[in-house]
C-alpha cells in the first residue's frame, strides 16, 4: 500500500477508521515507512501534550496587573520626563477671528486649553466684576477615566514670586478661583510626580 495520506493516517490514529482501511494502514505502518512513522510520532506527541495540558489561566485582575508593569516602567515621573513642566497652549478661543461687531455672552468667556505631558488643563476665564474675573478649570490625565491622578491637587495663581490665590481640585479634577484681579499670572499645579506651570495666563476683560 502506498502512503495513506494525512487524513486517513490521522483517522487511523484516532480510531475513526473502519475496516478494511484500518488493517491496510496498520500493515503500511508496520513496513516501517519513515514519512508515515514520523507523522505518527509527531501527531501522538501533540495529542499527548494537549491531553495532559491542565494549565489554567490566571484571574483577569492578575493578568491586568502584570500587563501594567510595562506601562508603569515606561512612564517615568513627570519631573524626570520634562522637569518642572511648562504647559503648552493648545487652544485659545480668543485666537479665532470674532465676527465683526458680535460679542455675545458666550464669547465673552475665554476658553484656553493647555497640555503638559499626558496632562491637559482646560480653563475658562469669565468676567465677574469690572476689574476681576473668575477662573474655572479642569485638569485631566490622558487614559484615566476615574480622575484618580487629578483629584485633590493644589494649585496657585502666582504673580512674580507672590501666590495671589490658591485652590484644590475636586474629585473630578475641577476647580474655581473667584475674584482674580485682571492681570497676567502663572498658574502652578502641584502633582504627585512634579509641577506644571501655565505661564503668562491672561486674566483680563479682553
Amino acid at each position, binding site marked *: 500500500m502506498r502512503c495513506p495520506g494525512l487524513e486517513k493516517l490521522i483517522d487511523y490514529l484516532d480510531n*475513526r477508521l473502519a475496516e478494511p482501511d484500518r488493517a491496510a494502514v496498520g500493515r503500511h505502518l508496520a513496513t516501517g515507512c519513515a514519512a508515515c512513522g514520523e507523522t505518527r510520532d509527531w501527531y501522538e*506527541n501533540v495529542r499527548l501534550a494537549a491531553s495532559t*495540558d491542565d*494549565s489554567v489561566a*490566571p484571574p483577569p485582575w492578575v493578568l491586568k496587573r502584570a*500587563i501594567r508593569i510595562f506601562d508603569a*516602567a515606561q512612564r517615568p515621573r513627570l519631573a524626570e520626563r520634562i522637569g518642572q513642566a511648562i504647559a503648552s497652549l493648545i487652544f485659545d478661543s480668543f485666537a479665532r477671528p470674532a465676527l465683526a461687531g458680535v460679542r455675545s455672552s458666550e464669547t465673552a468667556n475665554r476658553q484656553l486649553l493647555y497640555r503638559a505631558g499626558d496632562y491637559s488643563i482646560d480653563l475658562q476665564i469669565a468676567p465677574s466684576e469690572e476689574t476681576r474675573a473668575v477662573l474655572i478649570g479642569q485638569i485631566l490625565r490622558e487614559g484615566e477615566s476615574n480622575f484618580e491622578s487629578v483629584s485633590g491637587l493644589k494649585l496657585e495663581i502666582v504673580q512674580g514670586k507672590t501666590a495671589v490665590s490658591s485652590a484644590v481640585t475636586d474629585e473630578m479634577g475641577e476647580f474655581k478661583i473667584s475674584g482674580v484681579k485682571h492681570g497676567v499670572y502663572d498658574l502652578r499645579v502641584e502633582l504627585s510626580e512634579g509641577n506644571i506651570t501655565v505661564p503668562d495666563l491672561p486674566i483680563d476683560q479682553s
Partner: protein
Amino acid sequence: MSDFTQREDRDLIAACLSGEQAAWDALIRRYQRLIYSIPLKSRLSPDDAADVFQSVCLKLYEKLATLREHDKISSWLITTTTRESWRVSAHSRREPQPAISDDENETDSLAQLPAGGPLADEQHEMLERQQAVRGAIEMLSERCRDLLTMLFYEREESSYAEIARRMVMPVPSVGPTRARCLEKLRRALEGKV
C-alpha cells in the same frame, strides 16, 4: 496597529524593547497559563500563585534585553517560575497557613510538581511541549484554532457529524479541513515537538 499575537517570541521581545505596550501585552497573554499553573501545581494557594505570577513578570521585564537572544523563553520562564514558587512555598511553610477554601481545592485536580528541587527533565520538557502546542494553535486562523481546540482539548470526543455541526461545515469537509489545519500546525511547531 500591528498584530503582535502572530509574532515569534524574539520579535515580541524586540518590540517590547522598542516601547511597544501591545507587544508586552501579547507576550504575557502567550505565557499566562504556563506562569500561573506552575505555582498551583506546586500546591501554592491562588493568592500565592498570583504573587508568583507578578514576580515572574517583573523579572521577565527586567531581563528583556538579555532574553532577546535567548532561544527558549518558555524554558527560562519554567525555571524562573519554579524557583519563585519554591521561594514562596518555603516562606509560607514558616508562616501559619489559613484554611484552604473549597474553591482553592479545585486546583488539587492539577498534576502536581515536586516541592523543592529542579523539575525532572521530562516534566520540564512536557511543560514546554504543552506551551508550544498551545502557542502554535493560537497563531493559526480562527477556523483552525476552533477545530483543533475541539479535537485536542475537549474531554468528550466529538463525532464528525458533531464537529461539522459546530463548525458549520459539511461532514465530508471535516477530514480535509482537519488535515490542512494539522499541516499548518506542524509547520508552526517545526523543531518544537
